[in-house]
């Protein structure tokens, strides 16, 4: 398994102008590494649907690379989206999956069949253009250039160390996070987009 911090530190160097959408417990750490928060998107709001919103964004902005840092728990809530993405074939869509094999935010209970599911294989068989799996940081770091040069949709499933939270929600440390509304305003301002 790879530490989430190392995934983000490695990806950051290859981000370029990509629009980045982090989700889940692991995704909250992206804020420690980003250097272009005008292109960071908070698209949360409904269980398992950040993946769908990221697809919509990729379809609406075909000239921008859209990078989603998804989590396996969220994806399992809405697994049909894998077929939906494969069907639309957005060439600019990079679907990273941070797989910690558990629901870290609720105390670390395992997701169904946590250790055996091959998410990259699943996406590839559904019709993604390319699929990668990583459990080793050096392997990931060696391949990240090639990944970001791929034609999407690409899935990159990465086994990560769970950051389990056991404190009651009210007593947890709050990591500052830009609101969805602010991130939409920032991106639209950055790209000169007006709501139709």
């Amino acid at each position, binding site marked *: 398994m790879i530490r989430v911090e190392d995934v983000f530190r490695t990806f950051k160097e290859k981000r370029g102008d990509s629009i980045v959408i982090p989700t889940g417990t692991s995704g909250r750490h992206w804020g420690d590494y980003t250097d272009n928060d005008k292109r960071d998107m908070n698209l949360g709001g409904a269980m398992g649907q950040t993946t769908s919103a990221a697809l919509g*964004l990729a379809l609406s902005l075909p000239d921008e690379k859209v990078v989603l840092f998804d989590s396996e728990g969220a994806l399992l809530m809405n697994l049909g989206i894998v077929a939906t993405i494969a069907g639309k074939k957005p060439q600019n869509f990079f679907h990273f999956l941070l797989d910690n094999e558990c629901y870290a935010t609720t105390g670390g209970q395992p997701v169904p069949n946590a250790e055996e599911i091959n998410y990259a294989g699943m996406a590839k068989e559904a019709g993604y253009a390319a699929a990668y799996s990583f459990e080793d940081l050096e392997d990931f770091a060696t391949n990240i250039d090639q990944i970001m040069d791929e034609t999407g949709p690409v899935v990159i499933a990465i086994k990560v160390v769970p950051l389990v939270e056991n404190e009651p929600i009210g007593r947890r440390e709050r990591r500052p996070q830009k609101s969805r509304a602010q991130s*939409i305003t920032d991106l639209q301002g950055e790209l000169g987009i007006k709501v139709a």
Partner: protein
Amino acid sequence: MVEQQAAILSPEGLIEEFKKNGVSHVVTIPDSETNYLYELMKEQDWLEVVPASREGETFAIALGLIIGGKKPVCLIQNTGMLESGDSIRGMALDSGFPLVMVIGYRGWNRHGVISDSIARYTEPFLNAMRVNYYLVETNEDADRISVAFEEAKKTNRPVAILVGDEYHGFNRV
């Protein structure tokens, strides 16, 4: 016969309303009543169809499209609308953007007893979510579709069109 033909909402009429209101994408799951409409939508070079796997996806995909400056419509059946409750809440209502959702009103009939439970729950569901809606049965009602688009834009909220035409649907008649 002429009267019967007039008493339906034609798929061509619906597509004309989409074009008039600047729709760019239809995010949809086809159902048994909408096959011809689906084929017709695919023929329009100004319209992109986004087939989804489950209805809850449609509202989130629509949000992503809206953020990128597009104008999507969600086209699903009332059964799928109930499945989409959390997505309608979190991705449509809470986001504060205009969105028209076209909902096939399965089980509804102006005449007689409605026996299909989904038809009985459809309007209470929309009322619970505080989503305003317009019933469209025939081409004579089609101008309500433009009213829905105008209301969505004015209020920055989702507005629903209930298509109450299960017995003709959007198939060829």
